[in-house]
């Protein structure tokens, strides 16, 4: 990728599920980006609305070693020098859905209308010019935050950012952090 961007390397993405109120402002704001064709690349889900009002929000975790890119037979998915895992290159993507099946977080979606995999690029159109991702900017409850580790440490003294996820024997490190109870260092997914 070019050196012409003003991507701030100190800023990271933090997701605090405790704060999510399920309002979907992030989805609506993400879809405002015309590079997505007005499809949201972030997804809010009710775990089980009939029994709880807990919601989750899922953004691309931008893995250090992205499985989606590794399994892509067409080399359509790339990761740049800033750690952003980009959406499929439209000229290369063959719509095979390998990435959809391989991602441990369930992020990439194949949009049938375009026969193309699309995913969050951490608002590269904004972050590459020094702005914050749209979803994190509008999130009314602060469930999504984009900034520095120092800022989040000051803001959330009872939480720790975690970006190591353990899936069985597989350890996945990501550019995106999940806010966990203070002192946590990894999230083990059983």
């Amino acid at each position, binding site marked *: 990728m070019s050196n012409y961007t003003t991507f701030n390397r100190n800023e990271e993405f933090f997701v605090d599920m405790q704060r999510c109120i399920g309002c979907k*402002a992030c989805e609506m704001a993400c879809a405002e980006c015309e590079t997505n064709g007005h499809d949201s690349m972030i997804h809010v889900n009710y775990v089980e609305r009939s029994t709880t009002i807990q919601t989750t929000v899922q953004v691309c975790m931008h893995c250090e070693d992205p499985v989606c890119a590794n399994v892509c037979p067409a080399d359509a998915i790339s990761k740049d020098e800033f750690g952003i895992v980009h959406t499929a290159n439209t000229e290369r993507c063959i719509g095979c859905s390998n990435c959809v099946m391989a991602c441990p977080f369930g992020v990439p979606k194949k949009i049938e209308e375009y026969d193309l995999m699309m995913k969050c690029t951490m608002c590269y159109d904004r972050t590459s010019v020094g702005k914050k991702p749209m979803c994190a900017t509008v999130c009314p409850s602060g469930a999504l935050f984009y900034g520095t580790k120092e800022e989040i440490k000051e803001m959330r003294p009872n939480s720790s950012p975690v970006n190591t996820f353990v899936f069985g024997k597989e350890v996945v490190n990501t550019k995106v952090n999940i806010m966990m109870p203070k002192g946590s260092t990894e999230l083990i997914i059983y």
Partner: protein
Amino acid sequence: MAKLPVSIDKIIEQFGPSLNYAPKDGFTGRDEPDEVVNTHCCFCGMQCGIKLLVKENKVVGFDPWMEFPFNEGRLCPKGVQRYLQNNHPDRILNPLQRVEGKGFEPISWDSAMDKTITEIKRIQEKYGKDAFSMLSGVSLTNEKSYLVGKFARVALKTKNLDYNGRLCMVSAGAGNKKAFGLDRASNNYSDLEYAEVIIVAGANISETFPTLTHWIWKARDRGAKLIVIDPRVIPLARTADIHLDVKPGTDSALYGAMLKYLVDNDMLDHDFIDNYTSGFQDTIDAVKDYTLEWAEEITGIQKEKIKAAAELWGKAKTSFLLHARGIEHHSKGVDNVLGCINLVLATGRIGKPYCGYGTITGQGNGQGGREHGHKCDQLPGNRDIENPEHRKYISEVWGIDEKDLPGKGLSAYEIIEAIHRGEIKGLLSICFNPLVSLPNSNYVREALEKLEYYVCIDFFLNETARHADIILAGSLQEEEEGTTTSAEGRVIRIRQAVTPPGDARTDTSIILELAERLGVKDKFTYDNSETIFNELRVASKGGTADYYGITYKRIEDNMGVFWPCPSEDHPGTPRLWEDKKFKTPDGKAHFNPAPYKLPGEVTDEAYPITLTTGRVVSQYLSGTQTRRIGKLVDQFPEPLLEIHPEMAEKYNIKQRELVKVSTRRGEGIFPANIVETIRKDTVFIPYHWPGQKSANLLTPGTLDPISKIPEFKVSACKLEPLNEIAPLGTESKAYASI
């Protein structure tokens, strides 16, 4: 004026609601707008800062306004999508007249104005001045609210003017005046961050004021304890320390029992009570029998939880109490509010850093709109229309003889009742949709059908406007300069981003022309919104809501100024009562006895279930604006009947089964949503929809005797499953258009 000129379907075909989406291939030129306008969201009382992107006199998108101090760029889904109401296909572009059998057809402004003035004069000559009434809305800016109040009294010369804040927070306003002598939330919301305990009572903040949740979560991050009082487990309650699932209509019993617990366990600020308050003894005498056991029986909340909440509240050093419509929409809404205020005063936690209290205004200018004189009992500056000194002052500002200034008129629902009785014959409304937002919709419709003349100023043909004789094509928020006052009490600037499309006009110019044609042009000479604001400043000077020191420039320079601000060198007042000098006649904060009373309607054998109503995150009030924005409708396309699994089982109701819900006022049909997040004896329906899907077909017209707010939150109902599962998707979505 009678029934609709053509079928509803034909009206919908022409005027919507139809759904507006951002074009799939994007707005042409959105990347390079002609202009970026810093203004505010047109919806709730948070009045979040937002930048509107303007291209060729159309709003084509938004950008977060990161620098605005309250929301710092944050927005809810309504805020994100609000720009789509501009350039909407349903927009009324010309004045319209009703044509029987044909619907609504464009006419010239001259004809619309001529007919309106002729009818106003005819009705007033035949039946008297007060037989022509006006209903206003608090989506209007401060300038327009002020102008409407003056127009009704000086041009129409009617006493019968009221506003849709009557359906919002007037119970809080009345309670605030009784307790503090001034009607405003006591603090700016940044004080929340360091509060030790926060009580949120009857306020679904996470769905109705989402950007406020940030400040509550900030406090939680600092270790604050959160107490949520609500019959439903609202999203904010998910991580609350204590959730008190109060039975609708019993709130004052809960506050009374908590107050008694504070007294019994001496968790009181005696210094504050002794030196700065009055009425304490009478107030605690009124709750002397309110044991925890008694409260458990009345409210349905376990006594251990009430005790735990009282302990948390009593022991805290700093605290914040917020409430909204959940406790205000009652026939004893003022008592509920006073019950909350008593808890605040007993612990003396007001007028100090990180200690506060307040109602959260639901409508965009719910705060400012209740200060500038379009309430039936009020003059600008929150002055009393029956106070001789106040009348004299405003008469002088307006250049009229005091004897010509009408007195107190009827409140909103009472105006409808007077129309129904045939006492009021004419109506002018602006930005108010009573057919959806008032209770007892069938009764409201009957009243509209009895009017001899109804003229409406609006930008979409809302459900009530369909009954009008003439519609004057008015303006959106972003089409006029002005100010609003957020729920914090911060006066902010609304910027004109575009001009009204087609032949539509600004609301201000319409009102000014009506005034001119009514022969009082000399009383309505304004160059622009700022000159109206400058007159408002003078009119408010010396009143409790004193804006005199606030200027457009000061607002601009400071991103808002908090009232009261009595002079141009005054910094404004983000936190009230730091001087302990209250605005009551004796200068003290007043405790007020708030004994528990039954709601206006109680359950019985015929109607055994309590129905309560509220909102959802993607819709706003009567839905005039939000039911026209595609993604907001997609998110919540229709009102669902929330029902607990145990009640669903009892009545053999399945998930998404259509259920007929009946009260003594009417019946509606709603798909069931079986959830564990509601009390077992209560069902919930959101109220943003009209027609068969209107919650307000069911709600009663019982009014609080002081605030005249209707009791939306308590109805006795019965349920009847219809043995039909509601379709999902587009068929179901069609309900949104009814």
